[in-house]
C-alpha cells in the first residue's frame, strides 16, 4: 500500500532520508494505528521501511532465507512495529514476510512493469544510495548478494550458459527495489517509479485482495499525505528541479517546483494542497500537447514523459463533473466547480440559452460581489465579466436584473444555485471529441458520466450508456466500442469511429476508461481498482471512483476552510490571491487523514497511488451492484475457472499464469472473462473491457529483421507443480496467488502480457523497451535457450491487433499476417466465426494455439492448438455506424493480411486457473529465482518461484523466451518444441500457461 508507489527518481534522491523519514513516519503511524491487528502490520511494515522493499526483491532471490526466517505467517506485528526504527538494518524479509508471500507474484510482475529504464535507473540509484546511506546499503547489499548467489545456483540448474551475466542484473534490480521502497515511503505519493512502484504496489494489491483493501487504502492515504508533505523537503537534494506553472481556475498562476522526474501525482497534490482542496478526485491537471490538444496529466506517470517537448505549463481543471454538485461536501469544491463552469460557459464549451446565461451570470455576481449595489455595479463594470461567448448589452441588463433578485444570498448559496442550473444543461460534463463515423461524416463523441454520446452538429444521434458498452478499444486512429446486444439481438456489435489521429483515439479511449471507472463503478472496492490501477498504470483510471470519493467526503471533518472568491473579471490576480490555506486548517486536514481509525478512504492518496502501479483488472468492471469483492474477482474468474484436468495429479486447479509475453502495448482483456462475468452477473453485467492497442516497438525486433516481419516471439511458459499433498483448495489459493504474480510478471516483459482477462497490458510506449531485459522470468530451464519462436497469433480475444486501421473488428483474429513462417497459428477459425457470432467466451478460452501443443493436450478445455498453415488470415470486422438512423450498418471488410506492417500478436494458453484472486492468503514466498540466458537470437529468462502455503509448497516456473530473428524460424515448431521440452524436463509439473507474443516490424505512423 504505502510502498506502492515509489518513484525511481525519488528513490535516487534521498535514500537515506527517505528511510529515516519513513521510519519516523512509521513510528507515527504505529502510534496512531496501534489498534490495527495483523493486517495492519504488513502494511505498516511495507510502507515505512525500506527494508520491506528490499525484502520484496530479495524475496525473489532470497526466498528461502526469508522463509527460514519467518516462514509462513506474518511476522509478529508488535515486534515489527517496534523494530521499525531498526528496520532499516534488518533484512527486509524479516520485516515483510507476510507481504512478501503475497507479494511474490506481484513482484515478479512489477519488474515487468518497469521497463528497462527503471532498471538502469535503479542501478544508478543503488549506487548513489549506497554511497549516501550506509544503512540502506547494508540492507541492499545483502539482498543483492543473496540474489546473486541464488542466481548462480539457479543458473546451473537451468542452463549454465548465459546465466551468470544475466544474474547480475537481477541482483541489481533487487537492490534497487529495496532502496526504492525506502524512498517510496517518504515520497510515496509523489513519484512512483514504474518498476519500483509496481513492485511495492503489488504487495499492496495482494493484501487488498486478500482482505483489507480498505485498510490499505486508508493507510496508503495517510502515508501519502505525509509523504506529500515530506517530499518537498527531499526534493531539494539531488534532483533536478523544474518549475511547473499551473493555471488555476481563477486564472492565477501557481508556480510549483517539481523534481524533473516527478509524477503527475506530485504536482497535482501540490496544487490541491495550495488550493486547500480535499475533494480533489473530481479534478485533474491538463496540458496542451504539441498539437495543442488538451491532455490529462496521468498522475501515475512521470510528468516529463507525458508532456514531452511541451512546456511545463498546466491547467487545473475539473475532470469529472459531478452530476449532482449538491452532493459535494465542501463549499470550496463547489466554488472551484463553479469557476470551471464559468469558464466553460463563457468559452462556449458549455452552450446555454440566453436566459440561462443571464441566470448563471446573476449568480456569479451574487457570489462574487454580494448583494446588488447600484452604486458599485454599473453596467459598464458588469461588462468586465464574461458571461457568455458573445455578450450583449441586453444580456448584461438581464444579468443585473436577476442579480437584484438574489439579495441576501450568500456566496455559497449563490454557487449552489449556479450549479443547480448549470448541471441541467445538456452539455454539462460532456467531453467532446471530433470524430467521423464509418461513413466519414463528421460527428462528435461526447464522453460523460452516463456513457458515450454521439452528436452530429448539435443533434444527438446516438447514445451508449455505460451498461451497454462491453468493450472500449482503440487502434491506431480508430476508436471502437463493443455494444452489448439488445433484447432482440443475438450478437454484439462494434461501433467504430475514426479520430483525426492515433493520439486523439487514445485520448478518447482514456477519457472513456476514466469516466466509466469514475462514474460507473460504485463499489468502493479497492482490490479491483487497485488491480486496475496497477496494471495499466497508464490507462487505467487510478483514482477513486465517485462513490469512493463521496464516501471519503463524508469523513471530511474540518471547519469550512476559508477561501477567497476572486472576481472572475479580474483574472490577472497575483498568486497571492489564490485561495489561502490557513495553517491550522492544513494541519487539521493532515491529522484527519492520518487518523487511523477514521479510514478516510476518500482521501487516501494511497488509493491513488496504488492505482498507479498496476491495475490489470481494471478493464473489467463489475457492476456496482455486486459486492466489492465481486468486482475484483470476476475478472479473474474466467481464467481461474478453467480447469486443468490433466494435471490433476498435482491438483492445481488454478495455476494460471500469465505468462504474458510482451507487452505493454497491447492490453488485452479477455473477453472470456468478461463474458463469464456477465453471465454470472446475469443481469447486466456491466463489464467493459478496455482494450488498448499500442504498437510496441521493440528494439530487438527491428534489429533482427529486415523488412517484413521477422517475428520475434517471446514465449513464456509457466508451469507450476505442487509438491506436497495436493489439497485442492489450498493449492488453488496458492495458485491464485501465484497467478497474480505471474500476471504481474508478465508485465515485466517488454511486451506484455496479455493475459486474459484482466490484464491490460500497458502500453507503455516508453516502457516497452525496457522490459525485455528486466523480466524476471521464471523458470527452470525447461525450455531454455531454445529459440522457439512462435508466431502464433493469438486469438486472444481482446487484443486487437494492429492491422488495418479499417478493420476494427472486435474479434479480429489476427492473422499471423505475414508471418514469414507461414504458420499462423490461430484460432483463426474461431475468430472468424466469432465475427459471426461465436461466443466470445469460447474464443477466449480456447484461443491457445500451439501447433505442437503437446503440453496443451493436458488441459482439457484449454488450449487449442491451432496450427494455421493458412497463410494470410483474413480479418473480418463488423463495423457499425453509430447513427441511429442508419440502422446499424455492418460492414464487413476482408483484407488480406500481408499488408500489415507491424504487428504484435500474443497468444495465451492457459490450462486452468483458480480463482485465487489473491483473496485467500497468498501463501509465503519461499524462493524466487530468475535466470537469464542468452544466445544469438534467443534470450531465455526463467523465473522460479516457490511458494509455501498452508503446508503445501508450490513451485512455479515461468520461462520467457525471446527469439529474435528472421522469419525463417518455424515458430510453431519452436514453440511446440519448447513446450515439449518443458514437459519432459519437469514431468511432475504441468504447463499451465503458454503465451506467445509475436512482434513484427511495423512502421507505425501514429505514435
Amino acid at each position, binding site marked *: 500500500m504505502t510502498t506502492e508507489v515509489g518513484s525511481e527518481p525519488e528513490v535516487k534522491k534521498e535514500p537515506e532520508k527517505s528511510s529515516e523519514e519513513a521510519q519516523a513516519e512509521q513510528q507515527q503511524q504505529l502510534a496512531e494505528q496501534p489498534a490495527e491487528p495483523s493486517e495492519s502490520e504488513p502494511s505498516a511494515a511495507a510502507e515505512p521501511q525500506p527494508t520491506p522493499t528490499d525484502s520484496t526483491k530479495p524475496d525473489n532471490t532470497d526466498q528461502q532465507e526469508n522463509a527460514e526466517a519467518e516462514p509462513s505467517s506474518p511476522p509478529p506485528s508488535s515486534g515489527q512495529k517496534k523494530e521499525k526504527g531498526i528496520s532499516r538494518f534488518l533484512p527486509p524479509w524479516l520485516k515483510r514476510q507476510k507481504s512478501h508471500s503475497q507479494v511474490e507474484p506481484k513482484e515478479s510482475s512489477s519488474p515487468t512493469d518497469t521497463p528497462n529504464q527503471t532498471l538502469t535507473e535503479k542501478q544508478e540509484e543503488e549506487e548513489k544510495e549506497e554511497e549516501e546511506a550506509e544503512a540502506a546499503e547494508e540492507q541492499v547489499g545483502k539482498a543483492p548478494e543473496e540474489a546473486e548467489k541464488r542466481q548462480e545456483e539457479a543458473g546451473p540448474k537451468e542452463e549454465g550458459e548465459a546465466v551468470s551475466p544475466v544474474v547480475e542484473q537481477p541482483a541489481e534490480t533487487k537492490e534497487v527495489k529495496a532502496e526504492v521502497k525506502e524512498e517510496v515511503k517518504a515520497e510515496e505519493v509523489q513519484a512512483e517509479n514504474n518498476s519500483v512502484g509496481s513492485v511495492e504496489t503489488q504487495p499492496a494489491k495482494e493484501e487488498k485482495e486478500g482482505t483489507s483493501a480498505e485498510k490499505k487504502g486508508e493507510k496508503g492515504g495517510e502515508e501519502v499525505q505525509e509523504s506529500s508533505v515530506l517530499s518537498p523537503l527531499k526534493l531539494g537534494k539531488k534532483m533536478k528541479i523544474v518549475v511547473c506553472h499551473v493555471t488555476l481556475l481563477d486564472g492565477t498562476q501557481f508556480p510549483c517546483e517539481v523534481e524533473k522526474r516527478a509524477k503527475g501525482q506530485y504536482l497535482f497534490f501540490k496544487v490541491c494542497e495550495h488550493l486547500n482542496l480535499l475533494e480533489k478526485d473530481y479534478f485533474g491537471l491538463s496540458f496542451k500537447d504539441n498539437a495543442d490538444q488538451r491532455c490529462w496529466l496521468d498522475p501515475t506517470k512521470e510528468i516529463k514523459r507525458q508532456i514531452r517537448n511541451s512546456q511545463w505549463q498546466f491547467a487545473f481543471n475539473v475532470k469529472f463533473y459531478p452530476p449532482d454538485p449538491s452532493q459535494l461536501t465542501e463549499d470550496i469544491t463547489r466554488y472551484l466547480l463553479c469557476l470551471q463552469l464559468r469558464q466553460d460557459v463563457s468559452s462556449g464549451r458549455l*452552450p*446555454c*440559452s*440566453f*436566459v*440561462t446565461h443571464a441566470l448563471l451570470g446573476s449568480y456569479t455576481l451574487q457570489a462574487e460581489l454580494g448583494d446588488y449595489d447600484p452604486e458599485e455595479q454599473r453596467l459598464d463594470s458588469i461588462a468586465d465579466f464574461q458571461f457568455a461567448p458573445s455578450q450583449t448589452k441586453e444580456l448584461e441588463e438581464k444579468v443585473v436584473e436577476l442579480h437584484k*433578485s438574489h439579495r441576501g444570498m450568500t456566496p455559497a448559496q449563490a454557487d449552489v444555485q449556479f450549479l443547480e442550473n448549470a448541471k*441541467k*444543461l*445538456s*452539455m454539462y460534463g460532456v467531453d467532446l471529441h471530433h470524430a467521423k463515423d464509418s461513413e466519414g461524416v463528421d460527428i462528435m463523441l461526447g464522453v*460523460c458520466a*452516463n456513457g458515450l454520446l454521439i452528436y*452530429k*452538429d*448539435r*443533434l*444527438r*444521434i*446516438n*447514445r451508449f*450508456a455505460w451498461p451497454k458498452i462491453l468493450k472500449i478499444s482503440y487502434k491506431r486512429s480508430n476508436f471502437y466500442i463493443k455494444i452489448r446486444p439488445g433484447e432482440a439481438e443475438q450478437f454484439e456489435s462494434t461501433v467504430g469511429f475514426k479520430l483525426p489521429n492515433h493520439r486523439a483515439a487514445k485520448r478518447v479511449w482514456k477519457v472513456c476508461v476514466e469516466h466509466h471507472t469514475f462514474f460507473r463503478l460504485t463499489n468502493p472496492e479497492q482490490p479491483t481498482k487497485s488491480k486496475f490501477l496497477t496494471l495499466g498504470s497508464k490507462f487505467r483510471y487510478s483514482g477513486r471512483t465517485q462513490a469512493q470519493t463521496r464516501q471519503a467526503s463524508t469523513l471530511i471533518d474540518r471547519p469550512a476552510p476559508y477561501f477567497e472568491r476572486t472576481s472572475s473579471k479580474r483574472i490577472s490576480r497575483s498568486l497571492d490571491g489564490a485561495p489561502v490555506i490557513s495553517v491550522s486548517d492544513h494541519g487539521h486536514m493532515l491529522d484527519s487523514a492520518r487518523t487511523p481509525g477514521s479510514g478516510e478512504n476518500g482521501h487516501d492518496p494511497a488509493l491513488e497511488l496504488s492505482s498507479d502501479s498496476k491495475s490489470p483488472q481494471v478493464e473489467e468492471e463489475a457492476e456496482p451492484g455486486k459486492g466489492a469483492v465481486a468486482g475484483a474477482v470476476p475478472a479473474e474468474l474466467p481464467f481461474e475457472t478453467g480447469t486443468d484436468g490433466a494435471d490433476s495429479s498435482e491438483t492445481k486447479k488454478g495455476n494460471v499464469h500469465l505468462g504474458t509475453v510482451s507487452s505493454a502495448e497491447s492490453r488485452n482483456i479477455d473477453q472470456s472473462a468478461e463474458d463469464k462475468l456477465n453471465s454470472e452477473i446475469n443481469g447486466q453485467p456491466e463489464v467493459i473491457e478496455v482494450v488498448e492497442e499500442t504498437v510496441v516497438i521493440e528494439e530487438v525486433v527491428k534489429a533482427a529483421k529486415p523488412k517484413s516481419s521477422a517475428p520475434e516471439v517471446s514465449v513464456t511458459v509457466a508451469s507450476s507443480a505442487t509438491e506436497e499433498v495436493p489439497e485442492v483448495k489450498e493449492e488453488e489459493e496458492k495458485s491464485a496467488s501465484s497467478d497474480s504474480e505471474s500476471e504481474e510478471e508478465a508485465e515485466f516483459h517488454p511486451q506484455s502480457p496479455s493475459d486474459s482477462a484482466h490484464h491490460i497490458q500497458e502500453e507503455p510506449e516508453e516502457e516497452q523497451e525496457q522490459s525485455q531485459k528486466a523480466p524476471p522470468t521464471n523458470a527452470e530451464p525447461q525450455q531454455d535457450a531454445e529459440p522457439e519462436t512462435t508466431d502464433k497469433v493469438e486469438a486472444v480475444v481482446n487484443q486487437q491487433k494492429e492491422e488495418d486501421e479499417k478493420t476494427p473488428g472486435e474479434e479480429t483474429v489476427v492473422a499471423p499476417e505475414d508471418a514469414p513462417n507461414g504458420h499462423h497459428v490461430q484460432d483463426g477459425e474461431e475468430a472468424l466465426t466469432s465475427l459471426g457470432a461465436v461466443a466470445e467466451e469460447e474464443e477466449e478460452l480456447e484461443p491457445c494455439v500451439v501447433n505442437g501443443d503437446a503440453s496443451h493436450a493436458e488441459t482439457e478445455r484449454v488450449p487449442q492448438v491451432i496450427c494455421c498453415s493458412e497463410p494470410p488470415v483474413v480479418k473480418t470486422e463488423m463495423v457499425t455506424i453509430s447513427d*441511429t*438512423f442508419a440502422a446499424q450498418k455492418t460492414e464487413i471488410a476482408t483484407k488480406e493480411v500481408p499488408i500489415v506492417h507491424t504487428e504484435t500478436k500474443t497468444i495465451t494458453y492457459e490450462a486452468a486457473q483458480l480463482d485465487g484472486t489473491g483473496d485467500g492468503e497468498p501463501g509465503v514466498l519461499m524462493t524466487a529465482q530468475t535466470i537469464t540466458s542468452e544466445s544469438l537470437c534467443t534470450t531465455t529468462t526463467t523465473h522460479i518461484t516457490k511458494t509455501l502455503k498452508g503446508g503445501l509448497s508450490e513451485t512455479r516456473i515461468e520461462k520467457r523466451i525471446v527469439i529474435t530473428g528472421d522469419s525463417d524460424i518455424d515458430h510453431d515448431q519452436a514453440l511446440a518444441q519448447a513446450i515439449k521440452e518443458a514437459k519432459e524436463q519437469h514431468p511432475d509439473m504441468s504447463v499451465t500457461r503458454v503465451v506467445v507474443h509475436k512482434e513484427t516490424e511495423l512502421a507505425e505512423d501514429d505514435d
Partner: protein
Amino acid sequence: MQADFGRFTHAVIRAAPDSLAAQALRSGPAELQVDMEAVRREEEQYVSVLEKTLGLRVVRLEADEELPDCVFVEDPAVVCGNTALITRPGAPSRRKETEALKTALANLDLNIVEMTDESATLDGGDVLFTGREFFVGLSKRTNRRGAEILADTFQDYAVSTVPVLDTLHLKSFCSMAGPGLIAIGSSEAAQKALKTMQQMSDHKYDKLTVPDDLAANCIYMNLPDKGHVLLHCTPEAFPESAKVFEKLKDHMLIPVHNDEKRKVDGCLTCCSVLINKPSKV
C-alpha cells in the same frame, strides 16, 4: 426547468377555416367527410376546457381561408420557456401560417426565433418536449436541418432525433402524459420510436402504453390549483385507450372530442400552443 413542466398560463389557438373540410392536408382516406359543424363544436369544447375549466388565457387567432390547415397551430411554432421558434413547416402550403402566429407570440413578449434556413423544415408536431430534453421526429415534414435549428434555439436542452417513418408526426403516436411519463401507442413503429428515445436519453421515462396510437396524443398540464391535468381522447373514440387514461388516479382527466379534426390528421396537441408566462416578479 423540470419543476414547472406542464405549467401553462396562456394558450394560442386558431379558428378553423371552412376550407379545412375540403382542402386540409390529410394522410387518411379523402372520402371521409369533415363535418364543419362538428369541427366548430369540438373547437368550442376545446377552448372551453382551456379557458373555463383550466383558467388559461386563450388567444384566438382568426381563421384564414387561404390556409386550410391553420387550425393546427402547433406546427408553425415551438415554444419553450420564454422563447418561441417560428418554424418552417414541412408542407409548403402551410408556410404562411407562421405569420399570424409570430405576431401573436411576439405580443406575448416571447423571444422570437425564426427558422429562415430554406433547407430546413420542421413541424411542431414532430417536437416532443419532455421537460428535460427534446426529441425531434425526422419525418416527411421535419428534416435534420430543422432539428439543428431547434437545437440551436434551445441550447439548454439535449435534442435527439428520432426517425418517424410511418406516421405524419412524432406526436402522432406519443406525447407527454406527466412529468417523466410518455404516453405511447402500441404499434410497432411507436414502440420502436420509444426505444430509440429511451436509448438516447440520460433520463428515465415511464411509459403509458395505450392501444391506439392516435390516443397517445394527449395534453398534460400542471396547473397551480388543479395539479396534474390531462386532456385525452374520449371513450367513444378510443374506448380501450380511454380506460388506460382513466387509471391515472392523480390526474384531473378531461376527455376531449376530436373526431372530426382527426380526419385531417388533427390531434389534441395540434390545436394549441401552450405558453407559460410567469407573472412578472
